[in-house]
């Protein structure tokens, strides 16, 4: 227990220290030192995470590890505590392992930055890892929320890393604000829990679910899911993620693979006890995921920016994960998080390598034939494409298959849409692959002259990730294929398994065969279509609609941004200026006016003063003399009935 407490503290503190040291010392350290230090901090956390993983694997999970009471008011106690179990142990490995590879890659990729900015970049990366670790290690929703917000901040800082470009700043701002809308839901869920149960600790909440009514559970889970929609880029809060491509490419890899977007999946998986009790929330999660998966895949087909295609594919794959969560395949979703982390990090870093070689050209229509110039990037990228398309025995196949099998058992329509999306995925990924790497080079001769394979700091992470993308699925081979699903067994203490959705082996074979056949067909069509004559002309009709991402950004602008802006200017100009402030100034003016009128009485003419004095004396006499007899007399005289 004590060992665990220390280990976890170090896992979290190393990246934090890295952030502080590089952030404060960025003007004093050499680039080499900055990159080495930042990477080494994450590597240390990675080693410690492995030890934690082994301890958990051997000894099982332990109770919460409390460091101090974060908030303490009366009976309400929110401890600063960590929870380490099988689920968080797996996330630790993904975050620190992939995070480390991205650090190493960045050291070469960001080499052209000035020293101060280089330091700033690595300190942000460290902070990103720190926040994500806090998110998955927290033992209650408040600590999770702290990490959650920290991740949002880091994405803001890194998307807008090249802050001199206003478009990038806009993208950064958009990411943060969209996430904030989701955060609102998350916060309300926390308040709801605390008001009902007086605690936000996972263990206390889950063991006391019986005290919650169905309405409570549904409300809490839906509110939590709104948070997950923001962070994990689901409809309707997904538009920030494609724009987040403004950041340096390794950052995209970090956001899409190791950190940030998987947070929503983690949150729902962590709360699986609650979700299992609310059918409404589960259906909402499943349908949102399914619709997002299909919707994003259609957009990806028509994108010509190498990173945009990958971004929409992430949105789509996240949709798969939510589909898995919604149909009760929690392990499948976590499994897909893991394999997706491998191949998506690989694809993004591969894209970065291409962009590096092309001198920051990202339009795939201007690429082509890169196969012979970038051999390592080419082969690893191809592996990534096969893995994401779900071709066995690459990793993506197993995790996607598990989700689809559960979806089939839940509702065959879900499965149908899921498989169609898988076909689209294979199609757009190989469209991307064929346009970029096959055919002949379509860039300028100048660019062709400079084409080169990236340095080994960039290719080695690619190779490692490619290997993981190939073999990563083997931890979850289903029984029907002769495996025993090690991951499933490992996670079983944390994640509920929905036994009722078991299907027979023959059905499973049929489903697998069908989805692989569809994916393979899509691949062949894409390669045949795009390797020789890439589409360069602008599209029309539906194509144009897809190219413009269904005009969702424009729609949001028209129905949300503009009206709120008008409301704000109405409040400022009408209510504030002509209403409240006018009233305040009016009171001031009234006082001024009346004092000006009263001043006229003091006009310096003695006769007037004497007149007033006499009048005053008469009044006093009337009131006081003889107990006010005269006064009463006069009153009776004038007012008696």
């Amino acid at each position, binding site marked *: 227990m004590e060992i665990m407490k220390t280990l976890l503290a170090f896992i979290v503190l190393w990246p934090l220290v890295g952030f502080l040291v590089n952030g404060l010392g960025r003007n004093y350290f050499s680039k080499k030192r900055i990159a080495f230090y930042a990477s080494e901090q994450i590597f240390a956390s990675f080693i410690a995470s492995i030890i934690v993983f082994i301890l958990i694997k051997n000894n099982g999970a332990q109770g919460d590890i409390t460091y101090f009471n974060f908030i303490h008011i009366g009976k309400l106690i929110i401890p600063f505590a960590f929870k380490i179990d099988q689920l968080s142990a797996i996330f630790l490995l993904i975050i620190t392992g992939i995070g480390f590879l991205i650090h190493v890659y960045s050291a070469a990729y960001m080499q052209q930055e000035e020293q101060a900015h280089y330091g700033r970049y690595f300190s942000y990366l460290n902070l990103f890892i720190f926040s994500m670790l806090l998110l998955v290690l927290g033992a209650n929703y408040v600590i999770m929320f702290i990490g959650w917000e920290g991740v949002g901040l880091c994405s*803001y800082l890194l998307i807008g890393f090249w802050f001199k470009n206003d478009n990038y*700043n806009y993208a950064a701002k958009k990411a943060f604000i969209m996430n*904030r809308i989701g955060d609102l839901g998350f916060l309300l869920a926390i*308040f709801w829990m605390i008001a009902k149960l007086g605690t936000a600790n996972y263990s206390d909440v889950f063991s006391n679910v019986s005290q919650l009514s169905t309405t409570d559970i549904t409300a809490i889970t839906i509110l939590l899911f709104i948070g997950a929609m923001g962070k994990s880029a689901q409809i309707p809060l997904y538009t920030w993620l494609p724009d987040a491509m403004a950041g340096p490419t390794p950052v995209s890899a970090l956001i899409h693979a190791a950190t940030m977007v998987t947070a929503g999946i983690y949150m729902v998986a962590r709360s699986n006890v609650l979700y299992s009790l609310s059918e409404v929330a589960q259906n909402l999660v499943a349908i949102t995921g399914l619709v997002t998966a299909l919707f994003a895949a259609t957009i990806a087909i028509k994108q010509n920016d190498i990173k945009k295609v990958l971004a929409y594919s992430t949105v789509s794959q996240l949709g798969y994960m939510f589909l898995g969560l919604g149909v009760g395949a929690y392990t499948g979703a976590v499994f897909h998080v893991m394999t997706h982390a491998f191949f998506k990090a690989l694809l993004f870093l591969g894209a970065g390598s291409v962009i590096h070689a092309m001198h920051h050209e990202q339009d795939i229509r201007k690429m082509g034939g890169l196969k012979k110039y970038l051999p390592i990037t080419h082969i690893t990228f191809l592996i990534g494409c096969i893995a994401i398309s779900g071709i066995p025995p690459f990793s993506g196949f197993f995790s996607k298959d598990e989700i689809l099998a559960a979806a089939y058992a839940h509702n065959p329509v879900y499965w149908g849409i899921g498989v169609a999306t898988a076909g689209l995925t294979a199609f757009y990924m190989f469209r991307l692959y064929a346009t970029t790497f096959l055919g002949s080079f379509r860039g300028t001769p100048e660019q062709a002259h400079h084409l080169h394979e990236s340095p080994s700091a960039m290719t080695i992470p690619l190779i490692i990730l490619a290997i993981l993308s190939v073999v990563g699925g083997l931890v979850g081979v289903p029984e029907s294929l002769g495996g025993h699903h090690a991951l499933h067994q490992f996670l079983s203490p944390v994640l509920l398994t929905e036994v009722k959705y078991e299907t027979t082996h023959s059905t499973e074979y049929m489903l697998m065969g069908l989805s692989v056949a569809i994916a393979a067909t899509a691949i062949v069509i894409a390669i045949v279509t795009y390797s020789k004559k890439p589409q360069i002309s602008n599209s029309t009709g539906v194509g144009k609609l897809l190219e413009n991402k269904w005009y969702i950004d424009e729609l949001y602008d028209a129905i949300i941004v503009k009206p709120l802006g008008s409301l704000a200017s109405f409040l400022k100009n009408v209510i504030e200026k002509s209403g*409240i402030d006018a009233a305040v100034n009016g009171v001031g003016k009234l006082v001024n006016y009346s004092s000006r009128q009263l001043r006229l009485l003091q006009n310096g003419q003695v006769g007037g003063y004497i007149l007033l004095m006499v009048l005053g004396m008469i009044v006093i006499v009337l009131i006081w003399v003889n107990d006010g007899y005269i006064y009463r007399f006069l009153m009776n005289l004038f007012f008696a009935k």
Partner: protein
Amino acid sequence: MNLSFLIILPLITAIIILFVKGLKQVRTVALAGSLLQLALVFNLLFQYLKERASNTAPMLFQYDYNWFDSLNIHYHVGVDGISVAMILLTSLVVVAGVLVSWAQETLSKEFFFLLIFLSLGAYGFFISLDLFTMFFFLEVAVIPKFLLIGIWGSGKKEYSAMKLALMLMGGSALIFVGLAGVYYYTFSNNQSFDLLAIAQANIPLLTQKIFFPFLFIGFGIFTALFPFHTWVPDGHSSAPTAASMFLAGISMKLGGYGCLRVATYLMPDAAHEYQWIIILLSTIGIIYGAFATMMQKDLKYINAYSSVSHTGFVLFGIGMLTRTSINGAVMQMVSHGLMTALFFAAIGMIYSRAHTRMVDQLGGMLKVMPFISTVFMIAGLTSLGLPGFSGFVAEMTVFMGSWQNADTMYRVATILACASIVVTAVYILRAAGQAIMGPVTNEQYNQLTDARWNEKFAAALLIIAIVVIGIAPFWLNDLIGSGTNTIMNKVLMILK
């Protein structure tokens, strides 16, 4: 610990300032004085925590002296956790304010004299246990503001100074009526201004109903209660940097403290009776302030309107009348005081260099002055409630407490108030995006220098306080909780 030192020390400092010559001597004396204040306050904090461990009396370190026998007015001082927290806030802001005014060339003697004098009023207000003495110190703290804005301000300073003074005086008048009511209609004979005695005696229901609005609105005006908030934007934006810091960091807290300590503590029945009005007005203030901020172009106006929104959380927390929400309200006072002082300091630093505060004229400050820009960003992030900074824990506590109030309408209000965090993010990031990031819009900005040592020191002091509260709020919880307990015991008696 003798609390009167908190008044004597600024008084001595102010008197010495009158006798020294030149900016250098004046500012040295002011800094030494304010650092001594800070040391004294830290001493108070530790003494208080030590004493509190064994002593359960509501007010510690009491001292009582009858200074107007005929009206039974006492100089009666004492502190609980809430006052200690506010005193701590005051001393931090004073040091930071003196440091950012380091180059105050014009009429420096008078300027620093007024700053120190203002802090005297604030300390006196926070330690007073006699309502009349408290009112006296409140007025002491108002007058320097008028002069600071009117003489050293910028823009339409005469208008702003007058507006601020008149509105605050209006508030004071209401408070005075309320205090007189409490004085005459609590005890049938032996009338007294003694806070503890009145709290003990339970004010008659009718008196509460009549005079609570006077006190709550009166103090509310000080803390930008909607719709009496319009002095805030004009006052803050015309004031010189240190005065803005004092105004938002300390003065607005006098109002929140009064609403809690005087209005709610003494008249819990009325607070409960008028609860819906308080919550309605503060919710409107929170949302309204946030939206109004969105349209502002001047950095100071942005921070001033956002103060309207943020101090709305204070009144909102008080209005909800749960233990957690009231604790949150006090935390929000501390947090907002530090954050807004830091924000105004950063804006002042930018303004003194670029000579503009318009976001569309600024741009690329992060490249030109990274330190100041980072300070600005930290203040902004605190303002939008990012975890790790004090704003998050304070707002979170207010909302957690508000949600505990099971009334459906109040939950709706909580959701609305909570939604303001999205709007806050919009205006903060918009301002930061235009002024701090982006390309450098003006060639001349490339010549500008980054923060000097005094500015760095001032910013660091406030940032440390913000981060310490943000990471380890429990000590502040405990400190404040020892004070809110007394108030809550009285409130809970009513609710049952």
